[in-house]
Each structure stands twice: as C-alpha cells, then as structure tokens.
C-alpha cells in the first residue's frame, strides 16, 4: 500500500501533500423486540488528500485511490485563498506503539451468541421488560498515512460496540432505558445487559419532584453528554485563535474547581479513541487540559501548535482538531457516601435529553433529566418532568465531590460528579 501511496505523492505538484487512506470492514447485527433480525456488512475504502501551494490549501476525498483525487486537490488549492498561517506538515518521526488497539474478530455465530446474551439479560415476562432495539457492531480498520515530509505511518485497529434500548411495562407504569458501550476488545455484553435492565426496572414508578434539591450528581453518562456538547470545544486551539473560545487569555489561570483534573489521552492503552498517530502523523499523547482547576493546555494540530509556539498534541483531525480519550481524575470516596452525610437532598441524574442543543460558546445548557432519582434519607425515588439548566463552566466552578469509580462512556473515562450550580425546574 505504501508503494501505491508514495507513487501518488510523487504525482502531486504541490509544495506539501498529505494522503490518508482508510480501509474498513464492519458487521452490525440488529435485533428488535427480543429477537435478532438482520446483519449489515460494510466494506469501504476512503482516501483523503490535502495539498498546499504556498499557503493555499486544497482538500479532496474519494473512494478510489487514483491520480484524479490529487489533481482535484491541487486544482482546489489554486482556486483557494491563503490561510492566515501555515507552517508545513509534521516530519518523519518514531511512534511509541499504543497497546490494545487490535484484537481478534468474533465470527457471525459468536455475534449471534452475544445477541442472545443481550436479549436474555433484558427480557423478563414477569417484570415486564423487553429488549426493544439491539445493535452489535464489530469493525476492523487499516489506516495508512504518507506525506511529502517523509511520514509513512500505518496501523490496524478494531472496535466493538453494543447498543441496547429497552422498555418495561408493568401495572400501568412504563420506563425506558438506552445505553451504548464502545471498546477496543469484545465487551461483556451479558453484564452490560444486566446493568441496563437494573436501571430500567429502577425507573418504573416515576413521580414528580416535590422537594427542593440542594445538589445534583451527574453520572458518568450524563457528565459525558454535557462535557462533550457544552464545554470541550473551548479547548480547540482553532476556536482559541479565532476568538470563539471562552478560554482565550486563560492559559494557566483558574477556570474551574481545583478538584478538576482533566486530560486528553490519545495514547491510553486499549482506549476507545486511542491510536498511534493523528491524521497528520503526529504521535498521540497524554495532555493535561486542566490541573487542579487551572487551564494548562489547548488541543492542537501541527499548525495551531506552531502558531501558538507550543508542541503539537496529536489532535489533528482532517483539516481541523478533534479530541481523543477524555479522562477526569476520580476522587477517593464513593460519591453517594461523600454527599449523604450532610443530609442533602440530591438529584442523581443518569441520562439527559438534549445535551446537543447546548451553546458551546457560552456553555449554557437546558436539558431534560431522562433518568433521574431523588436521594433523600436513604431512599431512592425515580423522578419525572425535571429540567436542568445553567452554564456548565459555572457548575464546574463549584464541585462538591467527585466519585471514585471510572466508567468508559464511548471514550470518556469519567467518575460521577456532584455539583451545586445547576438550576432544577420541576414540572
């Protein structure tokens, strides 16, 4: 493959050229209403080319590896305008091998067995629960990258995901629960299904919230939604340079509670979003974003790093910037134990609706608590018709506690977090 890519590279008449080639094979087993239903198989090839003529950039994609895609990118570059800054591309470098990115692929029969485990873990006639939708995906990919500065990088990865939507109906009550796990190795689907069922049954018998809460605990899943949609974009160095980020001029300043230690780690062994190199060929790294509440770094591609006179962080994603695995350092105690002692009335929120409507530039959010419980006097009551709103950065400035159990939520490795500055509106 490198021979073909290098041959194409030579045909480029641009000053700088980069070619990413992704080959992928995946298979998805789907199920509905306690039964398996079908399998979808995908075999794709994607080629992404970026070229620069001076500071003018051209980008072209195709499903074919041939000269046309290079010619198109060069034509676009000629028609483009100069970027405000361009310093070139990363040079050839050594990569530290990130472990745990590849594992063996199960057969179709093994996938069927996993599906049956998922169904068996949820379906329960006595308790009224059933698996509404199931998606089990196995995929393997090969990523090749060459550039005009001598980079030749390749890696093989696998990924597995299990998505379950379940419903319970009993004695006129209804509850629903949906969750997804994404891992580099085959997940324990049976245990996952049991966790979903436990939450599903716990949510039967929701009542309206009649008491004033003094604290909100966001579970890892709820926290991942708000971090991802209402907060992380402010670390994107392009947003910082362009003035859109809340963190402009805030480097090494206190931005949130000193309890927060947040990292972006693309080299995490077996990490859901780990790889050996980013889309520009920079080695993936473990970067401190926030240390004891102080802003320590943005996430960069090669050119934003050069522009801000710092090192690239391995977050190049196409012509932009992406995040890898996000890790929040856990606390030392169980979060419920940590907050219960003060006789607080706590709203425990396990999942939310509408996080994607948050305003990243202000971190303002207004969401619905879709799976929530009132913790009061040792009791746990499922609650309905509750909305949460506020500014997420303000909420993170007053952290009551951080839990001690980490959960992987599709590449967010987070504990639960207890916050006070979130407004709760009950219907």
């Amino acid at each position: 493959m490198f021979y073909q890519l290098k041959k194409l590279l030579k045909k480029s008449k641009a000053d700088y050229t980069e070619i990413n080639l992704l080959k992928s094979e995946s298979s998805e087993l789907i199920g509905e209403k306690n039964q398996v239903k079908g399998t979808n198989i995908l075999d794709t090839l994607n080629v992404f080319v970026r070229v620069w003529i001076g500071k003018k950039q051209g980008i072209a994609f195709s499903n074919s590896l041939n000269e046309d895609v290079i010619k198109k990118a060069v034509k676009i570059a000629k028609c483009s305008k100069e970027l405000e800054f361009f310093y070139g591309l990363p040079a050839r470098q050594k990569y530290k091998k990130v472990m745990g990115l590849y594992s063996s692929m199960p057969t179709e029969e093994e996938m069927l067995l996993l599906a049956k485990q998922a169904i068996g873990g949820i379906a329960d006639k006595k308790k009224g629960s059933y698996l509404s939708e199931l998606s089990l995906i196995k995929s393997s990919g090969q990523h090749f990258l060459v550039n005009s500065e001598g980079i030749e990088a390749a890696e093989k990865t696998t990924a597995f995901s299990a998505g379950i939507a379940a419903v319970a109906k009993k004695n006129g009550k209804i509850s629903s629960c949906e969750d997804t796990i994404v891992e580099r190795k085959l997940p324990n689907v049976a245990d996952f299904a049991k966790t979903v069922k436990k939450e599903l049954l716990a949510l039967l018998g929701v009542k309206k919230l009649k008491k004033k809460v003094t604290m909100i605990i966001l579970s890892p899943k709820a926290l991942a939604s708000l971090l991802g949609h209402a907060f992380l974009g402010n670390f994107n160095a392009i947003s910082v340079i362009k003035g859109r980020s809340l963190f402009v001029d805030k480097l090494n300043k206190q931005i949130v509670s000193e309890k927060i230690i947040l990292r972006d780690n693309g080299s995490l062994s077996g990490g859901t979003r780990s790889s050996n190199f980013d889309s520009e060929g920079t080695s993936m790294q473990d970067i401190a974003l926030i240390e004891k509440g102080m802003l320590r770094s943005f996430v960069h591609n090669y050119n934003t790093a050069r522009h801000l006179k710092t090192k690239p962080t391995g977050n190049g994603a196409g012509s932009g910037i992406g995040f890898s695995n996000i890790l929040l350092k856990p606390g030392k105690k169980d979060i419920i134990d940590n907050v219960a002692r003060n006789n607080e009335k706590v709203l425990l929120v396990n999942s939310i609706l509408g996080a994607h409507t948050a305003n990243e530039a202000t971190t303002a959010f207004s969401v619905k608590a879709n799976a929530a419980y009132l913790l009061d006097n040792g009791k746990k009551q499922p609650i309905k018709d509750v909305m949460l709103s506020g500014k997420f950065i303000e909420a993170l400035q007053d952290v009551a506690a951080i839990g001690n159990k980490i959960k992987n939520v599709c590449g967010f490795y987070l504990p639960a977090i207890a916050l006070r500055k979130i407004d709760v509106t009950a219907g």
Partner: protein
Amino acid sequence: MPTLDSLKLNLARKLLEKHKLHYWDIRAEEASSTGINAWNNELRRIAQSLTGGFSVRVLYGNGWGFAASTDFKKIAETIQKAVKVAKVMARATKIKTGVAAGKPARIKKVPKLKKDPRDVSLAEKRNLILGLAKKAYRSDSRIKSAIVGYTETVENKLFFSYESLVEQKLTYVHVGARIMASSKGKNEEQHYSKGGLAGYSVVEDIEEKISETCKKTLLFLNAEKAEGGNFTVLANGEMTDVFIHEALGHASEADNVLSGGSCLAGMIGKKIAPRYISVIDDSTSGNRMDFGSYYFDDEGTPAQKTYIIKNGILKTFLHNRETAYKLKAKPTGNARAQSFAHRPIVRMSNTYAEKGKDSIKNMLSKIKKGYLLKGAVGGQVDPAKGSFLFSASEAYLVKKGQIEKPLRAVSISGNIFELLQRIVSVGNRYEEPWPGFCGKGNQRVPVNGRNPSVLIKGALIS
C-alpha cells in the same frame, strides 16, 4: 473511477435469482460534493469529494442480510455476503416478516434546476462565502467570531429490484452561519441555516439573513436568564417544526412502534390531539423541493404526502415496506438511508402542522405572562415514554400580549400527549422553513418543516 454504469445489473439479477429470496434490492450512488468554510477574515477550507458505492439487501425466509461496498467491481462477492448472512439470520430469528406490495416503476427523475450550482464557478462560491463571513465579522467590534459554511451535494441514486428500476438525481444546497459576540465578560452565539433542493437559489437573501443573525446575537448578549416553570408559550414556526419532529414524528415511525419503542402503539384511529391539529409528512413538498424531499424513497416507493394526524385523530404511522407488511398498512414512502452504505429505515421527510386560523397578534394577546420562543436549536425524544425536549435560541418575555425583553435561550420539555392537548391555537400562515439533519440509528438524513406558530398553555420551561 468505477461508476454506476459499471455496475452489472443483469449479472446481479441472475446471481440473486439463484436463491429463494422473498425480497432483494440493489442501491447504488455516486455523490459529488463541495464544502466551503470561512471564519472571520479567512477562507478556512474548500473541499470536494467524489464518492460512491452500492449495497445489496435481501430477505431470505425471515432473515435480513445487507452488504455494501465502495468497489463497484465487487458485485458478486457483495451479493454472496448479503445472502450468506441472511441465511444465518433466517435460522436464528423467530420474527415473522415480509414486505408489503410495492409500486413497480421504471423511471428516471432528473429535475431541471433554475440555477444549477455546478454552473456556478468555485471562485464565485468562494467569494460569496468569504465575503459573508468578513462582512459579519466586521459589522460590529463585539462580534468575535463569524463562521459561514456552504455545502452542495449532488447525488445520483439508482434503485434496482426484482420489480423496479428507478433513478433520481437530488441536488442539496445548504448554507449556515454561526455568529458569536462577546462584551464585558459575556458571550452569546446565534445561528442561521437555510437549505433545499431547488438549486443555487438557496443562497438568495442569505446576506440579509446573516445580518439579522448578527443583530440578534448582539441583542441577546446581555439577556437575563428566563424564569423556569409552567408558562404559556407562543412557539414560532421553527420551534413548532422541532416540536412536531421530536414530540410526534419519531413516535409515529412504524419501526419504533414495532420494536415496542413508541407510545403511539395501538392508537391508530384514536383522538390524540385537539380537532384543530393536523400533522403531515410530505416528501414531495410540491415544487418547492424542501430539504427533506425526494422523488422515491430508498425502496423505490414514490414520495407522497401523508396525514399522520388529521383533525386530532391519529391516521397512520410512517412506513417502509416491512413495517407496512407487519402492520397491514400501505407503504408511505418513508424508507430512507443516509447513503448506499446504510440500510433504509423509517424516517421523516418534511413534517409539519397544517396551518390554522389564528393570527400572531391574537395569539400574543392571549398571553398574560409567558414567552415567545424562536430560533430552534434542536431537540431529542424518548419515543417509548413520549418524553421530549426542544430548545430555542431566542426567548422573549411576554406580558399582557406585549413583547417585553429578550431572555437567554430556553428549552421546553414534556410528554407528547400532554403537550398536544395544551396547544390552544394554530397560526394562519406557514413561516420560514427550518432545514436540518435528523439522527436515528447512527444515520443522519436531511429533514425539513414549514410550520405555523402554535400557542401552548402550561409548557414546562427551563
């Protein structure tokens, strides 16, 4: 690159007919797209792509098999994969399935556009988008970030089955802007979006709309937080669009009904809303070619206009051929797939509430203390419980019928059935459409709505 022409359809038919399949189809696509992005004074990106591939979908016994490839030469291998997995599924499943009768067709639909975007030079588009971003950025010193994006995608789609050969060409044009302002430690961001299938004319009046977005951003810069609680709300057309889409649309998708994930199961023929509420899904959208339109769905069923609710009564779900078979209904032309690489599932197209009789002035006069909501940001639903949320980027306090002051963005949440009953009147005209993308089952498809305003009593706001 290999093209649709290199797909050997006759060979494919022979290979598929060797097996005892209840259903088979082949979908193939070639898509060319252009994306241009400008940020403040800089042209950040011009990208073009030419992509394509095909998929084979089969039903063997009660098992579905689907296989897709970007290599048009791999037809035999891909068919073999699809049939093999379908046979495995047929042995494993206990769901009885089939497909409702289709409408055989042999047709090619290539619309004539008033202004084809491919007749506009890349330089002209580049200048337009960069000019819009620069103008917005320079319009006020408080505007710190102005992002303008243009996307144009031309899809040549082919659908081939044991009964049909249908080809259609769809040309999507979309322009969006995101404007951020900052002053005295406060930030605010507003957005604008416009899209359709009518060609390059989508960009007409875009400069004026982005200018309005800049003014709105500055207006809301110092907006206070809205008081949460139950209030009377006048939701404008955009907001009604998201509400109808989230609160009702997803629950009316028949695959959600069949999987046990819809609160509307068993409600056909029942009154679920006041008699002045009718809701339509229309993939034809007349001559307007709204963003969610097409000529045929991804099972070859012609686009059509469907009353989901008529005068308060739930009339039908939205169907593909499989759900129509299982629920003994007719396909409604709502089988859609993000691309050839995805299997078609039930999706909305252009979904809207039929206009009513009330004027905005009159609806406002009914609000003693409440809100006017505009600027839909999006929403989400749990269709099994009927629980939903949708968000507005603009909120205005209304007291005794008068619009008083702007307030920070809010969301409405609730239960589908309860909220439908709380709609007290429907506006008498269709307002500006709100094109967007809907996510379901790891797929995104373009959707649209052209809705009237609605007045809702006792909506939960935060």
